[in-house]
């Protein structure tokens, strides 16, 4: 969608080499002394490359802490060239980074790293999500017990569930905000990501809890969600789990329009 006034090729040739360090510099640039064009154009290349790597680093600080800065910046450099941003909103950038890590040969010894990145991406999405009220934890006590099974919940816009075949939640927690690092038991882990009082929270969930909460978030009734949770883990403590989720601000309201099923 370029205006046909002859200026488009200038932007095209200038843009085309910014993320391609081995391409010649654009033909239509010059300088007052007619020299130094490579170094001058490289100021732009450097600004673009460094600022985009910095953007990835600011979205994925725990991944960077785990890999170390040099490893991270090398990986991010490949990433920004393969997946440059398609929007000026850089806090929304880097969505393909977890998949990129999964396929990145040098990271194959850390199979859990992509899931740590997925938790970080969800953390930032929760941080910027729309503002909404939180369902008060004592709301449920006002509902007659026979009505509970048909209740539906509206999730808060920040609420997300992440599931990992690896101990990604523990590894994330240890590396987020520069926490203590210790040995980690190899097991699958799930997380509930929420935002309450402008604080993003990552809550490690018991087995089966994610099945239950995912169903509630998807708009299933409490009864249906409970059955799914108990099927995944017969020992799931549902009332404690509901209290934890409400406390974390996972839901914004109850849907009082009752079910049709």
């Amino acid at each position, binding site marked *: *969608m*370029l*205006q046909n*006034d*002859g*200026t*488009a090729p*200038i*932007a*095209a040739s*200038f*843009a085309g080499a*910014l*993320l391609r360090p081995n391409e010649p510099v654009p033909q*239509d*640039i*010059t*300088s*007052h*002394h007619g*020299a*130094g*064009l*490579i*170094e*001058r*154009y490289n*100021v*732009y290349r450097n*600004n*673009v490359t460094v*600022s*985009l790597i910095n*953007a990835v680093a600011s979205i994925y600080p725990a991944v960077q802490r785990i890999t170390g800065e040099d490893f991270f910046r090398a990986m991010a450099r490949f990433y920004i060239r393969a997946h*440059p*941003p*398609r*929007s*000026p*909103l*850089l*806090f929304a950038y880097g969505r393909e980074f977890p998949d990129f890590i999964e396929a990145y040969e040098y990271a194959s010894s850390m199979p859990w790293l992509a899931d740590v990145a997925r938790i970080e991406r969800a953390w930032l999405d*929760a*941080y*910027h*999500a*729309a*503002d*909404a009220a939180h369902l008060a934890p004592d709301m449920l006590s006002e509902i007659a017990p026979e009505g509970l099974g048909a209740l539906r919940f509206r999730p808060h*816009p*920040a609420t997300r569930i992440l599931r990992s075949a690896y101990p990604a939640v523990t590894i994330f927690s240890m590396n987020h905000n520069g926490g203590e690092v210790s040995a980690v038991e190899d097991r699958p882990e799930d997380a509930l990501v929420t*935002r309450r009082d*402008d604080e993003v929270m990552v809550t490690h969930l018991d087995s089966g809890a994610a099945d239950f909460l995912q169903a509630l978030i998807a708009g299933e009734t409490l009864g249906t969600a409970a059955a799914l949770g108990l099927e995944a883990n017969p020992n799931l403590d549902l009332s404690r789990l509901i209290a934890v989720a409400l406390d974390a601000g996972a839901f914004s309201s109850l849907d009082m329009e009752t079910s049709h099923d």
Partner: protein
Amino acid sequence: MSNSMGMQNNLADRADAVRFPHYAVAGQAGTSFKPEHLPAILAASDRCGFFEVHAENYMGAGGPPHRALERIRQDYPVSIHGVCMSLGGPQPLDPDHLQRFKALVDRYEPAMISEHLAWSTHDDIFYNDLLPLPYNEATLTHVCDHVDQMQSVIGRRIFLENPSTYVAFTDTTMAEVDFIREIARRTGCGLLLDVNNVFVSAANHGFSALDYLKDFPLESVEQIHLAGHAEQEDGAGEKLLIDSHDRPVADAVWQLYEIVLSRRGPVPTLIEWDSELPDWPVLRAEARAAQAILDRHSDTGGLRDAAE
């Protein structure tokens, strides 16, 4: 609320239109607003003149960035500085981005709104840098179209900022000052004169900053930026200055600033500092230095409030 272009916001349609107080910015010095400084700003006993934010950092749906900006806007006038509109590119402006910008302006009622004479998006790739353009009749036409479009969508007058550049173009047929003067004349936009950018570009392109300022349409200048720059060399061994915003304002830039104020009067002035961020007192001291110069020129020329 109205402005010099006669565009009106429909206050009746907006229940939240008067949530924030009006503050004058005439003759004031301000700084970039960084959320990490918020506690120190609120705890300080003295006031800063105003704060400037990068528009795109506040285009998320909700959350802590909006709490911080609401808090600062309660006590201060703000300037919304767009860095991604790509006014200088050949492509049509992104309608979604225009609407996001408008929503931000409606929500926070900034005292000043600015964007750059530069581009940052080509095709659908966002390069996150202020990229340069050749100055000629064709580029002048589409920059003016873009400024017109942005002003009419957001319903406010914008201030267009002169760039720092590192290369020139063989297709350039106009001087930068003539190009900028013509944009202001055709679109009615104000100008944001970044004195550090003048100093950086003058060094990089071998012209005199004083000559540039002599030719610059100072009567359209509604805001000034001051910032620090870094120094390196191009491959020909010539000095190449980089607009880095990571250190104090250079002495030579302060001197140019004095010269501008002596001719234009005390225009609202911002200390830009975006990386290697210092503690608040350091940034505050830079703004205080600018305020002292503004105060010395308080009876120079017509004192004007850009928000009126």
